[in-house]
């Protein structure tokens, strides 16, 4: 059995690419994603996690922290916008 302590960058790189592809397809074509925008926002977390895995496989730790913190700020602003659109009944 191959020990994963030597092959850890390969594992995280290919897993990150797989998560990126699957997550991007899920954001565009996912179930009920075109009706409710909050489901599309939740699906968007999966490719972000894939990008973070690719960065951690190259030992770019500061880049990964920046991605995660900008992701959290993006959540705050987008949740605010979704609530405002629901209040204005201008969504559909």
């Amino acid at each position, binding site marked *: 059995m191959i020990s994963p302590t030597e092959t850890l960058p390969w594992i995280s790189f290919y897993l990150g690419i797989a998560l990126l592809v699957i*997550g991007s397809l899920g954001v565009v074509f996912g179930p009920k994603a075109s009706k409710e925008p*909050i489901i599309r926002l939740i699906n968007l977390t999966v490719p972000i996690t894939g990008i973070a895995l690719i960065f951690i496989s190259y030992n770019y730790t500061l880049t990964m*922290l920046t991605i995660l913190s900008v992701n959290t700020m993006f959540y705050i602003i987008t949740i605010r916008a979704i*609530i405002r659109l629901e209040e204005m009944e201008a969504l559909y």
Partner: protein
Amino acid sequence: MVMIEFPYAAVILMIVGAIGGLLQTRPIDKILMLAVLGDGLISMIAAYQYLDVAMASSFMTFVGIIIIMIGLIRTLEIKKARGELF
């Protein structure tokens, strides 16, 4: 003697979180699967022995989950007040 190393468990957690998070249809189930995905990410970072990064990213991931849930409750209340829910 079969040995299961720790990063395999992290890989299985991340695959379960991604597939379950994309294919569920109710929003609260998707959020619970996102918590599993964040667990896998933090354990994968801890396998690299970047402990400060793991500490900061645990803050980021779970605070993001809590923010999404606040928005979800507010959206459902507005839909209930408009009468579109059931």
